[in-house]
Every structure is written in C-alpha cells, then in structure tokens.
C-alpha cells in the first residue's frame, strides 16, 4: 500500500446547511489503483462529502488535494478539469438523445464537432474495461444498468482518473452488480482511484480495498477490508448508543388493529418493491419501521393508506368497537374513509402530499372536511376553530391562520400536518419521518404527540431513520431490507448493532435464513 500514490486527499472538510452539519472536519485519503468504500447510515454525510469533491457543494472550510496539489473545485466543470468524475444516484441524462450524444454533451474542446469520432472512442473505452454499450441506443430505450454504463463512460470519456459512484448498486440486479464490479476492478487495475458510496456490507467486503466510515457527519475511521468483518463495520457505522430520554409508557391492553399478511407490490416501472410483507399493528402501541432509505417504507405506508396498488396479500382492519374485520386491500383513500376506518397518514413529503403550500392553515384543515357543509357550500367555521385550536395547542408560530403554510418553518409545517391528522381522531396513525429536518424541541413535541395517541389506544406506525429514537420511542421495531421484512424486534431489548445488521442484511442472506 505504501508505494501507491495518493490520488485524492481531503483535509478537515466541513460543510453545513443552516445550523446542521453535513460534514464536520472530515479527512480522507484515496490512492491510485484502489477501491475505497465510504460507508455510513442515511444522513451520515457520505453523499454530501462526495458532492463537495464533485463541485456540487462548496465546502465551508477544509482543503482538497489532488495528486498532491491543492485544488479549488467550485463547479462540476472544475471537477472535470481535475479529472474527478461522479456518477450520481439519479442519472443526469437527456432521454431523447442517444448514448453518444449524452456522452459528448458539454464538452467544448475546440476540435470540431464529430460524433463519429466520439462514437469510435466510446467503443474503445468500452472495450478496454469490458462495458457493454450500444452508442446509438436512445436513453429512453435503455435499462437502468445501461444508463449507468453511459454515465460511467461519460466520466471516463472526459478523462477522469478519480471516479466517485453514489450507491451504484441500489438499482441493479445481482447479475448486473457482478458485471459492474468486474468493470470497477478492471479500472482499479488500470490505476484509477475509485470511491464507492454504499451501505451494503457484503458489497463493501467483496469489492473494496479499504473502507472509510462516516457517522453523523463525522469521520470515524478507515480500515483495510481484509482485516475487518461485518460486526466491526456495523459498530463503526451505528456507534455507541446515546441516551435521549424519550418518554415511553407500557402499552395498555394492546389488541390487533391492523393485520398485514403477505403483501407484494410493484412500482410504476414494474419492479417489485414489497415482497411478502407480513406484520401486525396493535392498538396502544408504537410500531417502528427501520431500514435504509428506499427499502420499501414509503410503499408500505402508501399500500395501507390506499395509494399503492397491491399485487397480492391482505390488509385487514379490525374495528375497535365491533371487532369486525374489513379488507382494505386496493381501496381508495375515500373508500377507506367511507368504510368508517379512521386512518391518519403523515406522509414523508409534507408539502407535496400532506398539505397545500400556498393555502393557509384553515384551508389545509378543510382538505379533510370539505365533504361537510350544506349543498355545494363549504363550512369554514369548524376548520377555523380547529386551526386556532391546533395553533394554540401545538404552539405553532405563524402570523395568523390564513398565512400560506409554505412560509412556515419545517417544524411548524409538520405540526400543522400532524395536528390535522390527530384531530381526525384516528384509530391507526401512520407517520413517515415526522421529525426529519426538525430541531430538538419540535422533535420532542412530535414524540409527545405520538405517545399521546398511543395512550388513547391508537395503533401508531412510525417510520424513522435515527436508530436511537426508534429504540427509545417504539414498542416494537420492524426492519425492512430491500422490500422484505428482515426482522421484528422488541425495542426494549434490542441494540443498535442488531438493527444495523438487519438493515444491511442482503437479499441472499435473508434467503439463507429462511
């Protein structure tokens, strides 16, 4: 390792958004001819750090050295001039262009515009590293892995020596992943420095030479892959448990409220996003849902709320009064409401799905009650009372009840949404990342509200990302991994390591377990 040249060196990089740190004094080295994995939970600052290197974010402080010389990178263009190329998780390609056109886009080399020559060079690059690509194929005809190939070749075409890949395998099948890894190994042998952002432990172990771990914006350390194991990496990734002192009562008379059995869902592209999910939500209990972002949390909640089509399986709701069972499968939200099921849903996308940003609090309250009122007229009185009550009870800071909610701070927007959903006196309350972007005070207000619902005998489902919060707030925690349930644990007895391992459990592992 010692005779290798350092390709990229980061020194004390700090980047903050508002008063939140994305990276705090992070230092890293990458050598030519090696694959470095950057490992960390959601929100640990992996992508932010790499965006700094790729010129998308400008760091608040810190230095970047490339091949020993200090580099100032202020735009993606600068990054290219230092031979740094990043392949983003969301591809940046023009759909109606073919591969060649996308690859040459934005290159101004004064050499004249010759697509044929470019095409030949693309085939050369592809041959050298073993890519399979059709330079004349339009992007819209391509599979995800082909699009990724175009992105990687684009970066190589521009002469990148340092390649950064942001979760490249998240969208690939296991076979495609193998092909990608072979290509990456060949590029490593060619002397390129490769950084791969990931949270899949088995990939880290099979692919990389070294692993750098980030946790909560800070750099934890770098280990040589050959000298480590899953357990050590998980511990580095999740860290030591911190005490939050969130209030938690014992569940009172828990009884089944929602029984989900064996549901399967596909997304719009036809990819399976939920596989054989079964669980039970009980009244008077908070069920936590943990998992890496995009493991199916969103689809699961939307399936229950009637927003996501279910291929197979059942969702049974048990009425608390009559004990009658009703099937919610493939009902619209309106049908579910008409059945007398009081389901409240606080979606992840507050201003997109939850509230209308340009309307005031009163109007947003009416989104749930517009069906009431005589004939074609709306009743504005009740929503107005409700709005005033929520503002007072949840201490929402707003000039008045008619101010567009878009102008409120994130925490206040969330309080409006949670307040409205609670006011509907739900029997099932689902919240996706309700404290995301909120400060500590606002977060605790939300925890209190969830606890209050729990005491009222509501079945609460809480999707969270901070494991410390999940462990202290919930009664049981269900862990999702790649659209499957990798485990349901008792929150009072579990550890962060246990959940961390379940979260990163690969598809193969869970198959073996069965």
């Amino acid at each position: 390792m010692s005779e290798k040249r350092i390709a990229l060196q980061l020194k004390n990089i700090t980047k903050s958004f508002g008063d939140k740190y994305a990276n705090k004094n992070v230092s890293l080295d990458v050598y030519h001819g090696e694959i470095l994995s950057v490992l960390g939970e959601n929100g640990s600052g992996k992508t932010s750090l790499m965006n700094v290197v790729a010129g998308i974010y400008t760091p608040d402080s810190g230095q970047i050295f490339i091949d020993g010389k200090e580099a100032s990178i202020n735009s993606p263009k600068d990054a290219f001039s230092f031979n740094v190329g990043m392949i983003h998780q969301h591809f940046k390609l023009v759909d109606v262009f073919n591969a060649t056109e996308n690859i040459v886009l934005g290159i101004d080399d004064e050499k004249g515009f010759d697509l044929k020559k470019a095409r030949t060079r693309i085939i050369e690059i592809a041959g050298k590293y073993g890519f399979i690509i059709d330079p004349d194929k339009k992007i819209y005809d391509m599979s995800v892995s082909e699009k990724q190939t175009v992105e990687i070749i684009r970066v190589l075409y521009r002469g990148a020596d340092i390649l950064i890949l942001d979760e490249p395998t998240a969208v690939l099948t296991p076979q495609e992943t193998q092909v990608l890894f072979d290509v990456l190994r060949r590029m490593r042998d060619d002397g390129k420095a490769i950084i791969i952002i990931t949270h899949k432990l088995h990939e880290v172990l099979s692919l990389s030479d070294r692993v750098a771990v980030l946790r909560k914006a800070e750099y934890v350390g770098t280990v040589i892959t050959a000298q480590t194991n899953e357990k050590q990496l998980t511990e580095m990734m999740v860290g030591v448990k911190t005490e939050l002192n969130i209030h938690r009562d014992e569940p009172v008379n828990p009884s089944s409220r929602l029984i989900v059995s064996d549901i399967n869902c596909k997304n719009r592209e036809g990819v399976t996003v939920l596989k054989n999910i079964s669980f039970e939500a009980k009244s008077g209990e908070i069920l936590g849902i943990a998992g890496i972002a995009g493991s199916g949390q969103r689809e699961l909640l939307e399936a229950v709320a009637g927003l996501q089509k279910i291929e197979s399986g059942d969702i049974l709701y048990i009425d608390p009064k009559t004990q009658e069972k009703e099937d919610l499968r493939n009902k619209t939200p309106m049908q579910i409401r008409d059945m007398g099921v009081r389901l409240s849903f606080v979606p992840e996308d507050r201003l997109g799905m939850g509230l209308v940003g340009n309307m005031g609090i009163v109007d947003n309250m009416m989104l749930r009650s517009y069906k009431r009122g005589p004939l074609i007229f709306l009743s504005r009185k009740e929503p107005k009372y409700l709005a005033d009550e929520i503002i007072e009870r949840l201490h929402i800071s707003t000039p008045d009840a008619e101010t567009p909610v878009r102008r409120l701070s994130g925490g206040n927007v969330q309080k409006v949404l949670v307040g409205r959903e609670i006011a509907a006196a739900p029997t099932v309350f689902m919240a996706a990342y309700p404290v995301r972007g909120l400060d500590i005070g606002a977060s605790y207000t939300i925890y209190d509200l969830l606890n209050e619902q729990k005491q009222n005998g509501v079945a609460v489902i809480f999707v969270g990302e901070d494991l410390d919060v999940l462990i202290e707030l919930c009664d049981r925690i269900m862990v999702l991994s790649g659209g499957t349930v990798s485990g349901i644990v008792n929150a009072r007895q579990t550890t962060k390591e246990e959940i961390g391992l379940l979260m990163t459990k690969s598809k193969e592992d869970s198959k073996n377990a069965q």
Partner: protein
Amino acid sequence: MIVTFLSRAVGQAIPLLFGSTGEIITEKSGNLNLGIPGIMYMGGCAGIMGAYIYEHSVAVPSPALCVLIPLLASIIGSGFLALIYSFLTITLRANQNVTGLAITTFGIGFSDFFGGSLVGMMDGDGQLSVMRSSGYFKKTLPFADKLGEVGELFFSYGFLAYVAIIIAIASAWFLRRTRAGLQLRAVGENPATADAAGINVAKYKYLATCIGGIIAGLGGLYFIMDYTGGSWTSGGFGDRGWLAIAIVIFATWKPNVGILGSLVFGGLYIAYYYTGDLGRRVGELFKMLPYIVTIIVLVITSMRSKKENQPPEHLGLPYFREER
C-alpha cells in the same frame, strides 16, 4: 389558376414560416413563448415605422438604406420584446404562459397605436404607407417574369421569402448537426443535466429566445413590406402568429418540416378565395379550415407516442439550480 393559388399560398406561408422557425428555436431552449404573435406584430410595425421616418426625413432615400433601416428597426423591435420575455421568465422565473400572453397583448397594442398615429405625429396625413421601401422589398429577380408559370411559382417573391427558407433549413441543420445545437436541445430537454455537464443554461435560453423572437419578427416585416405592399392596416396581420405556434406542433419541432407545415397552412388560409361557384356561405366555412386542421393536428400529435416527436421535456418550466 392552380399556379396563382400556389404562389399566393407561398406568400401566405412565408410569415408563418418565420414565426414557426423562431418559435421552434425558442421552444428548443425550453421556453414556450406565447408572445410570438405580439412579437411578429412588433417586427412588422417597427419595420414600417423605421421606413416611414427615413422616407420622410431625407429628400432622396437610398435603396440600400430603404431596406436596411426597416430591417434593423424590425430586429430591434422584436428583439426588445423577446428580451423582456427572457428577462421575466429566465432571470425572474415568471410564469411563461402569463408572460407570453402579456407580451402578445402589449405587442399588438403598441403596433396598432403607432401604426395608426405615427402619420399624425409626424404632421402628415392619410394612411401609414411606405411605397418606395416596399418596392425594394418586393423586388424580384429580373428574369422572373419571362419564365412563365415556373417564374410565378418560384421566383415571384421578394428576397425575404428566400431568407425564410434559408433560415428554416439552416436552423434544422444547426439543431441536428452542431455542438451548440445539441447543447441547446439538452437545455430544453433537461436543464439540470445540461447544467451538470457544464453548459450555461441561462445563456442558451436567452440567446435562443431572443434570436427566435427576431426571426419571428421578420415574418411581420415580410407581411407588411412585401405581402401587403407597405401600408399599415390595423389588425391586418390577423391571427397568423397563433397559426405559427400551431405549425410548431405540426412540424414536431423540426424547422425543415415547418416549411411544409407553413405551405399547408398558407394554402388553407386563403382556400376560401378559390371556392368559386360554391357561393359565399361555403367560402365562410372554408375560412375555418386552418383552425379545424390545427385541432386535428393537436389531437393526432398528442396520440403519437414516438419520443422524438414530443415537445422538449422541460418546455414551459423555469429552471432553478438550487431546486435539484
């Protein structure tokens, strides 16, 4: 009679061709400029105003300036409106539809006001008319008359008609074959991608919108100086600007197909003159043809599924880097 109809159809087609080529260039950058009808009015009105002021301020107007001054005035007038549109929609990210409609209203109002009152302001009387300058715009090649029907069909138009066709073909070539053309299309399809690739999105949008506006403005100039023979009539340009926008869809955003589209619509626009014995009532029905065809074209194009024939993906939307 067929030849006369065809050559008149070409005369009708030229303003439409200028307008649609200009709008295609603009839309390729992702800007849906509904101000084009107003900009075309403005291009025509500014041109005739320039010609009138020049003709009345010198004793013996020179032929070259009789062409250059209206041309320059037209470019400044339409370019200015396109610049206002660009500033509002690109820099201030105002709603493109509202801005475009405002520009159209303004352009038409401005033109009708000055077209009607310029003569009075300059202490003249009668209609705003520039016969001399118009003569130069209408000048055909000397041998055109001797070629009979071929001459009438191909060589009986002023120079702007040929400019229109050259611009349309050149634009098609520019969009398909040049680096700048590729990058302009990328801006209209996916500005975030273009931005990440190091393309200056705002620059491309400004240039495409202003140049597109200027090209469209020449359509107004041709109409006034050549087609109507250099005299202003209030509202004379009619709704040709809107037809030009319809042709953009007909041509599936390809300037070379726009030539065909303009000829078809130009022919339909005057078809009612040639209904002959069918009587006036039928003639009135024929006046509806361009609009009926527009509706049919819209229905057909929205059913077509080929991706290349769809509008630029980011058409009508503002681009703001920090939103990604």
